[in-house]
């Protein structure tokens, strides 16, 4: 039976709820993750009368939050993408800054080393010029070590950060699982959505998506399952998996990420993308190792080229130059799960073949194979792997020993540790080898066109220093005599361009010497003003000796720095573009879910007026009742 009083009361109750909800909205206008709530009103049904259906008033069917799951998912994806790019761009920017100074940078330091070699060539007897060369070499070493140290610091910071990301993700996953349980319970009790719990959970999933890219699947009971990577479950209903760091099977200082849940551990390192964690892993994989290996390659190239040339020259004491730079060797890491007892020793071979990649050497039960870690491509090896005939590939010489089992692996890092062993071996300026060991001259009276085209000490150990004369006789024969006139070696004819070896030396002539022509071959003495080896040294750093003979050290340096610049620039541009996408997605979501205070003000006025009207209905009902009482009561 329709009743004005109860209809009025239903209005009062409904609009009170509406006003409550509006004030809740106003109160939470700035609460992160809050979705504005709406009161759904419906008529309360009607009573039949002879003249038709008379309504029984209003009721609140539910309090609903303004929420669009699709928009929310879009915003999360956009946020994950942005966070990854932002993390990468920030880290890349640090590397970029490291190489930014063109006046004290690597290219200039290398050039200054070459300049100081030229200064020695200008005055080979000047000890001060030699001292400057040594200190410039020291500067180059310090510069490379400082870059390498900065990259190492960055690597260890990233390691720490990956660990804390993993624990943050585990905590968030646990909290999401807890909320899932509370939501399922609340839904079961009231059959109404626990809006604030839902908001909290969406907020946590949003936070999670800043750390790692996630996919969510809503369940019928109100819970949400969360997946990361390529579908690995992080949260299943009220159960959360734990993300932990484990050591790389080759390099224990390198963290891998493992997802532990339901008694199973899965390595998810290579499947994770998005979020801060995705950015960290991407930076570690694509930029950090590459930059460090490239620096190592530069150190190896400088040391190898300089040492080879330096060893061919004589120092101020008349001694052979020997090694100028020391450089760290190839790093070889066995897998921790190798079952056999193989051992591998790797040395560097040709400089031209050396790359900045790391490699994996694997035994399949019958043969060893080598693959690049960056591209995964198999690298063909020649040789048999023995000490006498090592495997040769990409500038490496690999010797394997011991008994290997199928699946045994080694990681080979050709240049990663080059800089840790990089240093200048010479401290005494007199030991800089600026001179060449032999000086030759043609007698002024020579009438033929013969000239010495090459004179070198082929085997320093067998070299007998002294003054030698090469003389041609009338029959085309030749004789080499020492300072005492004793014959050292002789021949009955000479073909231009063929080498004459004697006493550890080798001499080659061009042209046609005439009868009676003679040439003198002298050993360079102490404190020589000879600068020929210094000129060769200055030239050697400009040789195209890298990348199959197509790149100089300077071009490798500029390639490295430009590469970093381009990657950083791309990451920053990508981040800026992704920021627009993220902002747009967030705006769309907040356009649906966010509180607008003007709207709430208007709602408040509306519900207030409705409330007042409902109260008036009760007052009228009262007046009607009084009227009736007055009419009937005497």
């Amino acid at each position, binding site marked *: 039976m329709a009743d004005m009083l109860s209809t009025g009361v239903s209005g009062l109750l409904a609009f009170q709820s509406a006003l409550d909800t509006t004030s809740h909205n106003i109160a939470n206008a700035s609460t992160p993750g809050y979705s504005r709530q709406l009161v759904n009103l419906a008529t309360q049904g009607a009573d039949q009368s002879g003249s038709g259906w008379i309504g029984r008033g209003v009721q609140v069917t539910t309090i609903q939050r303004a929420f669009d799951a699709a928009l929310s998912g879009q915003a999360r994806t956009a946020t994950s993408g942005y966070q990854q790019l932002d993390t990468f761009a920030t880290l890349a920017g640090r590397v970029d800054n490291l190489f930014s100074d063109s006046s004290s940078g690597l290219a200039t330091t290398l050039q*200054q080393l070459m300049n100081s070699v030229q200064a020695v060539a200008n005055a080979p007897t000047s000890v001060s010029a030699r001292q400057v060369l040594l200190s410039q070499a020291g500067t180059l070493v310090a510069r490379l070590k400082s870059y390498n140290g900065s990259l190492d610091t960055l690597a260890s910071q990233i390691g720490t950060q990956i660990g804390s990301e993993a624990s943050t993700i585990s905590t968030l996953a646990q909290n999401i699982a807890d909320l899932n349980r509370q939501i399922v319970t609340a839904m079961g009790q009231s059959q109404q959505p626990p809006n604030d719990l839902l908001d909290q959970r969406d907020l946590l999933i949003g936070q999670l998506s800043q750390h790692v890219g996630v996919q969510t699947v809503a369940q019928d009971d109100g819970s949400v399952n969360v997946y990361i990577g390529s579908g690995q479950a992080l949260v299943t209903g009220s159960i959360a998996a734990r993300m932990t760091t484990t050591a790389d099977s080759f390099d224990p200082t390198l963290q891998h990420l493992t997802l532990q849940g339901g008694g199973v551990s899965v390595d998810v390192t290579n499947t994770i993308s998005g979020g801060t964690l995705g950015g960290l892993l991407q930076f570690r994989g694509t930029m950090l190792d590459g930059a460090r290996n490239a620096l190592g390659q530069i150190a190896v190239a400088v040391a190898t080229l300089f040492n080879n040339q330096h060893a061919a020259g004589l120092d101020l004491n008349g001694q052979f130059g020997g090694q100028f730079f020391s450089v760290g060797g190839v790093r070889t890491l066995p897998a921790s799960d190798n079952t056999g007892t193989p051992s591998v020793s790797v040395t560097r071979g040709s400089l031209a073949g050396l790359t900045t990649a790391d490699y994996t050497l694997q035994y399949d039960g019958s043969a060893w194979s080598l693959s690049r870690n960056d591209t995964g491509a198999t690298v063909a090896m020649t040789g048999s792997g023995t000490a006498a005939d090592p495997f040769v590939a990409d500038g490496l010489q690999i010797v394997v020993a011991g008994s290997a089992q199928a699946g045994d692996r080694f990681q080979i890092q050709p240049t990663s540790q080059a800089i840790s062993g990089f240093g200048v071996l010479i401290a005494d300026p007199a030991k800089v080898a600026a001179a060449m060991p032999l000086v030759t*001259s043609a007698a002024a009276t020579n009438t033929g066109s013969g000239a010495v085209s090459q004179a070198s000490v082929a085997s320093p150990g067998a070299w007998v220093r002294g003054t030698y004369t090469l003389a041609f006789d009338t029959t085309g024969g030749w004789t080499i005599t020492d300072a005492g006139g004793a014959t050292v070696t002789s021949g009955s004819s000479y073909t231009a361009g063929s080498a004459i070896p004697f006493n550890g030396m080798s001499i080659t002539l061009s042209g046609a010497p005439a009868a009676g022509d003679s040439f003198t071959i002298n050993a360079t003495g102490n404190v020589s003003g000879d600068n020929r080896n210094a000129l060769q040294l200055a030239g050697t750093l400009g040789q195209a000796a890298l990348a199959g003979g197509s790149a100089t050290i*300077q071009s490798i340096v500029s390639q490295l720095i*430009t590469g970093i*610049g381009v990657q950083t*620039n791309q990451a920053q541009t990508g981040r800026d573009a992704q920021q627009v996408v993220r902002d747009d997605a967030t705006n769309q979501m907040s*356009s649906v879910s*966010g509180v607008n205070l*003007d*709207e709430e003000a208007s709602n408040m006025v509306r519900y207030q007026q409705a409330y007042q009207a409902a109260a008036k209905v009760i007052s009228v009902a009262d007046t009607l009742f009084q009227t009736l009482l007055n009419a009937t009561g005497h």
Partner: protein
Amino acid sequence: MRISTSAMHDLAIAALLRQQAELSKTQNQIATGKRVQKPSDDPVAAAQLFDLTRTQSQVEQFNRNSTAATTRLQLEEQALADSGTVLQRVHELVVQSNTATLTNSDRQYIVTELQARASELQAIANRQDTNGDYLFAGFAARTQPFARGSSGQVAYMGDSGARQLQVDSSQFVADANPGSQVFMDVTAGNGAFTTAAAATNTGSGVLDAGSIVDRSQWVPDQYTISFTSGSTWQVTDSANNPVAAGSYTGDGAIAFRGVQVNLSGTPASGDQFAVRPAGTQDVFGMLDGVIATLQAGAGNDATRAQMSTALNASLQQIEQASDHLLAVRASVGARLSVLGDADAARQDQSTDLATAVSGLQDLDYAAAVSKMSQQYVGLQAAQQSYANISKLSLFNYL
């Protein structure tokens, strides 16, 4: 589209922050004057900049190399000029000593001066550069190149090396000539042959240094001019085959195989003169020879004639040596000129490099300042509009 109140604030603040960041970047560019501050600002320009800065540094080093080469070559040129002066004075003294009226004791004074000149020449040849390196020692920079050995002769102790300095990416210039080339390997005689009188000559015939009149006829060999009588001569080669013969009537030319030598005085029968292909002789040995000739003196016509022949040959030799030094000096001058040209070319290159660096790196101030004031106005407008709009609320009217 409805906008939530907090999103409105967030968006406004984000826009303000972005404008501030851009303004700060422009301000930083203006403060440093550089458009490219990090490789990522403009990777292509940064790569070019690294290359250009490196090349600039290389060019500076080539400048220093060129200065070092120029300094040494100028020292060498001075030494060669001084040597030429000494030889000129020696030439005068020898001409003077070849006068028939001089007595042996007169010649002794000349000998004294010649000995002083010989020492002076040796001192010049032993000059050092600012670094203490001997100019004419080849690579044996710290070994005194010219010293008198136990035999009393000046020997060359250096080597035949010549230091090359790099003055351009592909250009090398020798910064010295080895002493052996400058002072030791002087072609003897007139450049083709030498003449000498036999010590056994009894006549007063004097042979001059001669010359080649027809180079196509000249066959280098050891020729002997023999007088079978006071008026007939015969020339034989090293195998003792007759080459030419003639009669001598006094002060006449003897010609054979493109050679012409002039004989004066009165040769005796059996006198011999040698014509030998020119070898090399060193300047110091030449001076020693002149001094020895003058010290030996001349007691009679025959020895006077022998001395005169010897002095004639020496005069020729001195001229030859002067020419040789001039030729070396010319090559030094040519190198100095090459260095000058290379310097000028490098100067141009430096200017080009600096222009290129500036074009890539330097900021266009006019554009940057106008950009900054634009950004300034933008930021100000954003701030003012935010301040105004954020005041609006329906609650103000309830």
